[in-house]
């Protein structure tokens, strides 16, 4: 078994970009995330070569990088708030151009919900693959998916409630 081929990288690229974009909701962060994900992936050897599991494998790497980055950012933000007494602005969707209403509403979902919908409903990962990618139990995948769809449904119906206050990151 060898490293990813150029062909495999080209094939998976749009999927990684989409995943990164909706994770970060910021094109620059998404670019960085895709880059660091592929660089990390190129230092390893994938366990399986079929397209679907290769994609899941890369999603897992990308997601791990994202979580690590968020943790660092949060720590930095807390530190900043401690010294300046101000709450630093969190990332927003303003740097992303979204023409579609559905996507605009989707963008307002908490990160965990966006991720699970992307993996299962858009990328077509199985529950098991999604659970492995996010490193969470299968039961959590199911409950999160059902809550995510419910919230999106309410938003689409126009019954838009303010975002739940608890942070889901």
């Amino acid at each position: 078994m060898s490293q990813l081929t150029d062909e495999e990288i080209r094939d998976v690229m749009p999927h990684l970009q989409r995943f990164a974009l909706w994770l970060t909701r910021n094109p620059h962060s998404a670019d960085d995330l895709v880059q660091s994900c592929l660089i990390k992936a190129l230092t390893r050897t994938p366990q399986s070569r079929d397209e679907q599991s290769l994609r899941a494998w890369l999603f897992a790497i990308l997601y791990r990088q994202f979580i690590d980055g968020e943790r660092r950012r949060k720590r930095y933000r807390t530190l900043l708030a401690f010294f300046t007494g101000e709450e630093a602005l969190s990332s927003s969707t303003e740097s992303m151009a979204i023409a579609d209403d559905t996507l605009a509403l989707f963008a307002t979902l908490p990160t965990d919900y966006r991720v699970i919908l992307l993996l299962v409903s858009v990328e077509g990962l199985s529950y098991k693959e999604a659970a492995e990618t996010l490193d969470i139990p299968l039961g959590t995948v199911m409950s999160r998916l059902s809550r995510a769809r419910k919230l999106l449904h309410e938003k689409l119906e126009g019954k838009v409630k303010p975002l739940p206050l608890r942070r889901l990151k």
Partner: protein
Amino acid sequence: MKPDEEDLHAWLDGEADDATARRVERYLAEDPQAAGRVAEIRYEMQLLRQAMHQQKQTLETPEPHVFRRRVRQQRQRKLALACVLVLSLSVGGFTGWQLKDSQMAGHLPMEDAVQAYKLFGNATLTPMDVVASQQNELASWVGRYFINGNLPPNLEQYGFKPLGARLIATAQGPAALVMYQDPHGTRVAWYIRPLSPVKLPHGERKAEDVMAQYWSDEHYNYALVTPLDAAATGDVRKAVAQVTG
């Protein structure tokens, strides 16, 4: 039994097992409202998928070789870092070794014993701290200054009698020279001093017209300094070499 929310989603995603699927289908057939809700979710997910596929990707798409190059650069950086580390360690180690060598070169082993012998070994009477012809007098004097040290050897069987002893200060503490003389006026000296800077191994060296044999125990360095030109000292040297070697 009524299927729960998660069962409905699992069925929708094709993840439900046969039993659950049958249960969900029966439930949806009996409850048009629930069936409507599930259809809505299915539709919304289609909507999402379509919107996702139509959304223009504004991200840069570098060619794969760009990533490979980055990986290579990262590896080279790590390798370079490791090299720097190894290099600095070896430079440090080598310099240290050189330093040690040069220090050792500056310190001829037991040079102080040789110098002390030269100072006190000449026939003119440089005053001794103790003038003793008895072995045990000398032994008790040495014992006072050098705890746990060896006592000066008895060299009478080789014709050498103790003449006296002299206390000498070194940077590491007191040292002492015990002078012996044979009936022909040949003088040999036994020397004791603290271990530092280094515990000397057993050895010997010649300096001009004298020979220094040296050895160590746990606490002190010792030396026997003998003149090279006197035939009478050959036996003493042999004896010392045997005992300490």
